[in-house]
């Protein structure tokens, strides 16, 4: 047993952090929200150069075939920096789905699928997916080069309806209509894709929670009232402590879910859902506390805090509600796992 990230993984996380910090993602996200996606797409491409888009793509299709923990690291950092775009969809769920559909034969049964995988890995393609009723909307379908819809056991190419605005500026949600059938008898592949999407979403939320705590602690040191930094007040301290506790005990669940997915994707439901529940709750607590600690300045659209506050509100309910995931944990436990 070794339940700890390896040195290379820590380096990967730090390198990503540094890359994203240098890219000034909040500014990128604001331009993205205003409809100017040039910098965002350039950043997506340079993240792909760093390997981020290739993690869930098998080596056979020019990907990295990485351990799911690496995907967790990447998605957490993307959430930490409020990176816009269909992250869980394009980096986790769709490549996982296509990789299973492409199979292990060479050449692939469907050359198109192999091509998409190669493009995804290179950052040349952004993809999104809907799986009603659990995942009723395809996120950011307007900017995706590949839009899919899955049913109980089939996958189709899809045409997105008009994008509905999300609480997170710049993010859109579309009802999609299935067109050409891509695969049938694909229930296991769809399930696996869903698990990876949930994992990625949970990681994004944990990262966003960390950012919210970063912002709140920084503000609490710098903002003075009654002649003292507000961080010296116990009511503030204790709320921040609660956030740290929630985040600290969320991450091990996330990494255990990654380990479970690496071992046996079909048996990982319990751990994936546990991680999603804990990370969503932690991120929501972080959002609530960070806003309170900032006071009115945090309630403005101008302050960067709003990027994470709305991200948590947006990604939180995607990929299954808290109640759905809790019920799935219990069902798995009752089933004896």
């Amino acid at each position, binding site marked *: *047993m070794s*339940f*700890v*990230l*390896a040195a290379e993984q*820590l380096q990967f*996380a730090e390198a990503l*952090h*540094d890359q994203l*910090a240098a890219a000034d993602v*909040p500014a990128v996200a604001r331009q993205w929200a205003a409809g100017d996606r040039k910098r965002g797409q350039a950043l997506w491409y340079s993240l792909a150069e760093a390997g981020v888009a290739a993690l869930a793509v098998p080596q056979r299709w020019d990907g990295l075939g990485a351990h799911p*923990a690496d995907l967790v690291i990447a998605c957490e950092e993307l959430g*930490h920096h409020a990176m816009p775009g269909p992250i869980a969809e394009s980096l986790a769920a769709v490549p996982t789905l296509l990789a299973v559909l492409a199979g292990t034969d060479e050449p692939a049964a469907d050359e198109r699928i192999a091509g998409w995988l190669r493009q995804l890995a290179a950052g040349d393609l952004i993809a999104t997916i809907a799986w009603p009723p659990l995942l009723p909307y395809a996120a950011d379908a307007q900017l995706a080069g590949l839009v899919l819809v899955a049913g109980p056991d089939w996958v189709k190419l899809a045409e997105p309806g008009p994008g509905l605005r999300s609480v997170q500026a710049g993010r859109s949600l579309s009802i999609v209509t299935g067109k050409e059938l891509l695969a049938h008898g694909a229930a296991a592949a769809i399930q696996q894709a869903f698990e990876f999407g949930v994992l990625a979403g949970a990681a994004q939320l*944990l990262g966003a929670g*960390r*950012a919210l*705590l*970063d*912002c709140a*602690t*920084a503000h*609490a*040191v*710098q903002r003075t009232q009654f002649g*003292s*930094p507000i*961080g*010296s007040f*116990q009511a*503030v*301290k*204790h709320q*921040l*402590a609660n956030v*740290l*506790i929630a*985040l*600290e*005990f969320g*991450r*091990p*669940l996330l*990494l*255990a879910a990654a*380990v479970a997915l*690496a071992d046996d994707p079909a048996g990982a439901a319990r751990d994936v859902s*546990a991680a999603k*529940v804990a990370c969503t709750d932690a991120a929501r607590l972080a959002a609530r506390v960070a806003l309170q600690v900032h006071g009115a*300045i945090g309630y403005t659209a*101008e*302050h*960067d805090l709003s990027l994470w506050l709305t991200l948590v509100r947006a990604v939180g309910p995607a990929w299954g509600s*808290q*109640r759905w995931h*809790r*019920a799935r*944990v*219990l069902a798995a*436990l*009752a089933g004896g796992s």
Partner: protein
Amino acid sequence: MDLAEDDQVAAFRAEVRQWLAAHAPATPLPSVDTAEGFGLHRAWEAELAAARLSVVSWPEQYGGRGASLLDWLVFEEEYHAARGPVRVGQNGLFVLAPTLFAHGTPEQRSRILPKMATGEEVWAQAWSEPEVGSDLAAIRSRAARADGGWLLSGQKTWSSRAVWADRGFGLFRTATGDRRHDGLTYFLFSLRSPGVTVRPIAQLDGEAGFAEIFLDEVFVPDADVLGAPGDGWRIAMSSAGHERGLTLRSPGRFSAAAARLVELWQRAGDPADSALADRVADAWIGARAYQLRALETASQPGAGGFHGTGTPAPAPGRARLADSAAAGSGSGRTSLDRGVVGRGAAGGRPAADSSLGKVFWSELDLALHDTALELLGADAELAEGPDAGWLAGYLFALAGPIYAGTNEIQRTVIAERLLGMPR
């Protein structure tokens, strides 16, 4: 990165499981807080010790197996799953022993530890006083110099299991100085010495779970000073993390309770009551999180031997915790930290880190038992009968946020030492 148990650990788990299946009492022993129960729990410690299972993490020379933190976690999982009896010697085993390993003399270790390991000597903690709770440095009980030792006088209180315990340990003032923390000395003393009076105090469940200890010029030889005179505060604080953290309340305890809660829910839960189902799921998730975080700690380099040979090495990322907040942020712009939340976790600042665990387990314990009582409906009130263990567990859990440093104190520690908030 994996969670698979290797052969050595699996073999150890099997040995513990088998031994407990053959030896653990089939029905619960009488309460440890009664004369009869205390004796039976002491005898149980001797039985555990005979199988070298009472202190697996200690070095072999003192009755242990030099087990790693991981092995110890496994032992605890099995112990709680088998509903092993309360460890009557827990304060000695989990608080005094780590302190002796860190600060005791070889003579003290070889004199004290073997008897502690067999339950021959049960130790009680004597920190709190009538006027001294959270503000421990305000201790008033004193020790005066005497020929070849010290004379202890004063009053200690809330001392768990002191009614039937043999010996006590705690801080006494040996000098008055400008700084309150100076002049405190760590003493080990007999509860049977002339001058000691122990007065039982009934707890919420009516049993004498703790006691007041009155000391009137109780002689303690120099050999029973732990560390240097005047250095008691530093010594006590260095092992405070043990009392709060993993060793005091191991993950196995909550994993076992959560598993039983899920069983109870399957048996007694109303499937339509999704609010209660949510709470059951959350209790299980919390127990799992606590367990996994311990496994992270056990995976740190240096986590091998933990009672005898040092604490896990600092994890990367942790060291920057307090500095990050100081970086500050201008209005509207943010400064994100590279790794505020420990990347793969505990270590670095064991004492402050254990504060995270203390708040987490104590609230989890309460939530878990509260949920069980909710599931039991009207039967939750019953202090006897097949499900009364949940009520007892709940009453026990109620004290968790108070002892071992209240949760308010822990949250302050977390904010100041881990998040860099100003004092």
